[in-house]
Each structure stands twice: as structure tokens, then as C-alpha cells.
């Protein structure tokens, strides 16, 4: 975790808080494990107490009191309204189009927000680094009304071309989602440790729309593996409030318990 020297918070804290802020109260959110999960749980203690969290493990409307270690953590089941089998999660909840926001992480992402979590380098059959694969992400990316992606921004993660499309964002641009029969709205934002990117309404290319406080645009450009588009209305993310920092720190500290 890299310290942001100009501030009293870390870049990961800023990223998590910025992600949490984007979730609307009452929304139904299908959550991937890791930082997306931390951000979603954080949002419930901030502006979205009625955020309805679903995890692929079958936990429905869960309200965990500490960070889950895995997507099937007992904490998620113990604080769920109900726990159901995975066919019900994938067929009745996700596939039916009932989820407002899918919240995903990624190992690699390209300028059309296509996600790779399968392998890095060389080929599928003989990869340099083999990653876990799809899990629930492919259908989350395909189906939710919108998708938010949380990922640290570096030239290793923000790449010109992903080595494998595990979960499609906007494919090759306008028209790709329809051609591939993806029904959801696709990625609406990518939250990084440097700022926030949103797809250009016309080209669907990810465009830097926010920088976190203390981050320079050159930092973002240097940490992006393609020629980064920057919004003419580039804004600065609101700095974390003390209460937000306290909440994220309290939450992260639960994972050590």
C-alpha cells in the first residue's frame, strides 16, 4: 500500500472511500471479494445503510460487521437476511436482471474496461502467470444495470490490450455489448488509487474524470498503458472526511481480528 505523502490517508483508503461514495442507498449490489467488498461494506456505514449486498456464495442482503476473508465467509452468512443456493443466486438474482450495481476487481483492464482475471503473459495454455479465472465476474459484468471496477492504476494493470477478456466491458467500443448479447449497461466507472475514470458517452473509452487530492494528471498518464484520455472537466475528488477515514480504518482493522 503506497502512502500518499501529501495527505493523511493512504491511496488505498482514498480509493476505497471514493468507491464507497458512488453506491446509492437502496441499490442492490452484487459484490466481488477484496476491495470491492470493503468499499461496499463501508458504504453501508456511510451514505447507503440500506445497500442490499449479495455475494455469489448465496448470502442475500448481508450486513457483515467485519471484513470477510473470502466470498463465502461465515460472517456473510451469519449477518444475511437469507442464504440461498448458487443456482438461485446466478439464475434468479443475477441473470434475471435484478442487480443495480456489480462491483468488481481486476488484474488487468483496457481502455474499454474489458477485464482480465484469467492469466498474464504468453498463452492461455502456457501462461506466465495464471490467475484464478472468472468466478462470478463474467455474468456480473454482462448483466448488472451498471458495473463499477476498483483497481490500482499502474502500467501493469492499465494495459493497451488485456491478455484475455474474462469479463467484457465495452469490447471493441460502441456496438460490442449488443453484438455479444450483454444486457447490462456495462462499466459506469473505474475507481483507482489515482482517481476515477468514466466511459466517454460517445466512444465509450475510459476517460479520467476525477483525480484524487494530491494526484497529478501526469501521474495518471504515466501509470496508464495506453494514451489516456482526460476529461476537459477534470475534477478533484473530495478529500476523505475524518469520519470516513475512521470508518474505513475500523473496517480494515477487523480483518486482523
Amino acid at each position, binding site marked *: 500500500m503506497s502512502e500518499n505523502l501529501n495527505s493523511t490517508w493512504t491511496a488505498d483508503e482514498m480509493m476505497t472511500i471514493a468507491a464507497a461514495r458512488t453506491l446509492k442507498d437502496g441499490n442492490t449490489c452484487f459484490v466481488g471479494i477484496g476491495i470491492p467488498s470493503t468499499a461496499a461494506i463501508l458504504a453501508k456505514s456511510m451514505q447507503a445503510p440500506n445497500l442490499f449486498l449479495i455475494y455469489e456464495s448465496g448470502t442475500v442482503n448481508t450486513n457483515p460487521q467485519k471484513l470477510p476473508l473470502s466470498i463465502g465467509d461465515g460472517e456473510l452468512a451469519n449477518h444475511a437476511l437469507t442464504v440461498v443456493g448458487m443456482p438461485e443466486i446466478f439464475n434468479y438474482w443475477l441473470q434475471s436482471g435484478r442487480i443495480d450495481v456489480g462491483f468488481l476487481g481486476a488484474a488487468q483492464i483496457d481502455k474499454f474496461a474489458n477485464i482480465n482475471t484469467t492469466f498474464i503473459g504468453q498463452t492461455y495454455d502456457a501462461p506466465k502467470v495464471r490467475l484464478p479465472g472468472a*468466478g462470478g465476474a463474467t455474468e456480473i459484468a454482462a448483466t448488472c444495470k451498471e458495473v463499477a471496477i476498483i483497481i490500482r492504476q499502474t502500467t501493469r494493470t492499465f494495459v493497451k490490450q488485456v491478455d484475455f477478456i474474462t469479463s467484457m466491458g465495452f469490447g471493441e467500443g460502441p456496438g460490442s455489448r449488443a453484438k455479444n448479447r*450483454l444486457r447490462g449497461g456495462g462499466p459506469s466507472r473505474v475507481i483507482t488509487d489515482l482517481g476515477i475514470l468514466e466511459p466517454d458517452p460517445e466512444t465509450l473509452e475510459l476517460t479520467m474524470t476525477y483525480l484524487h487530492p494530491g494526484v497529478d494528471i501526469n501521474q495518471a498518464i504515466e501509470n496508464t498503458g495506453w494514451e489516456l484520455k482526460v476529461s476537459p472537466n477534470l475534477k478533484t475528488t473530495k478529500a476523505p472526511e475524518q469520519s470516513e477515514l475512521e470508518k474505513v480504518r475500523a473496517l480494515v482493522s477487523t480483518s486482523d481480528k
Partner: protein
Amino acid sequence: MSKFLELPQAIESYVKNGDLIAMEGFTHLIPFAAGHEIIRQKVKDLTAVRLTPDLIYDQMIGAGCIKKLIFSWGGNPGVGSLHRFRDAYQNGWPNKIEIEEHTHAGLTNRYVAGASGIGFAVLKGYSGSDLVDHTKNVSEVKSPFSDEVLTAVAAINPDVTILHAQQADKAGNVMMWGITGVAKEAVFAASKVIVTVEEVVEKFSPKFSSIIIPSNLIDAISVVPNGAWPSYASDFYERDNNQYIAWDEISKERENFSKWLDDEIYSKSATGKK
């Protein structure tokens, strides 16, 4: 009708070289003790299906039990990679393994079709993913009612499914609760079913989100307290996360792993442990 058997006898009776085996339990109730007994009995050439291979299949792969892995998310949850899986897949140690990779939604529906006694299930899945180019048993069907095209996945029907559950009753029915994943589907899809349980009770008590697996769907029940360790059994014990973290180090090098295999599996008998 289920019989109560000691775990070694249950594995010996119902798990054969070359079987298609499903050991399910989504993070929760992973049948580790049964997996270790399979290693101990040196079962070979398994085609092993599991949504999340997790440590259990990493161990069985490293021990040389598995020739093909069917899965949809292959990591050490919350920790990192499965080193034995990668060493087998990329370097062929201790043997080459073939993989067949799916999405959770797709593999879940393969179980649903298997449980339903039909050759395939339909869903909207895999769309836009490169996975479809590398994965057998995924295709398309056109709706007979409209222009809709759906994904089809072939049924999966394990020779044997192995689960861990919290309780059996004396009649040999099994109850599990908390996260149950695809347990029900894996049972109905299988020819043979082995369940290890934490305890035997006189009578089940109601629990939220519980499922009951009737005795006539089960072949053998083995009472193995802590049989899901180091994963967890809701209301019995929590996940031993240090073990998941430690596994990264144990499994990274072949030598360490082989020592672990000798010390923790081959030289021990079939019990759950903590």
C-alpha cells in the same frame, strides 16, 4: 439408503481410479478430511470438478490424484495462487493435468442439468468472454419461440460426490446450513454420494437456510468431527485462516509440499483435525 462407515472404508468403497469426482462446499464445509483420505489411498486419474478448487484440490493435484480439473475460480481465497495446481498445469509435476474452465454461473448450471436428468441447461452466460474459446461443453441454442439465443452447458454427472455437513440423524439423513453453494445439485447429479458430518443427532432442529439431504440420496456417511478444517463449519468452528496463509509457503516448492504430504497426510490416519 445411507450406511454409516468409517471414512477409509467409505472412500475405498465408493471412489475409484478414473472417476469423475465432485467435492463441493463453497468456502464453507469443504470436505478436507475426505480429500486427505483419497490422497492416503493413492487414488489416481480423477477428473475432479469443483467451482473453487481451493486448497483441497491443490493438495490432491500435488499428490498426483487428479488428471483433469473442471473449475470456475482457481485461487487460494484471500491469499493468492494455488501453487500445486500451477506446477502441474504449467510444468507437469507430479503429472500433467488438463483443465476445463467455466464461469460460476456456467458450472453451476452444469450441475443443475446433471441434477435434473437432462443433457444440458440453458442460461445467458459466458457472453463476451474469451473463455468460450477454451472451454468444452459450452454451446448455444436458439429459442423455438423467438429469436433469442441462449448459452447451453452440458450436464455434469459425477460418479461420486463428496460433501461435508454439520449433522446426520440416526436414520442417515443429513442436514447442512449456512452457505450450501451447489451441494444439493452435486448430490442429485451424482451416482454415488459420500457425506462426512460433524456429529450425529437424535433429531434435527430448525435452522435458517438449512437443507436436508434424505438418506436415500446418500451411500455412505462418515462421522468426522472437524472434517472441514481448515475451512469452516458454521456453528461448529471458524475458518483457520492461518492455515490458508501457511499453505502459500508450504505449497510453493515441491520439496516443502512433499514433506507436508509425508508429515500431515501419509503418516496420519483419517480424522478431521484442528
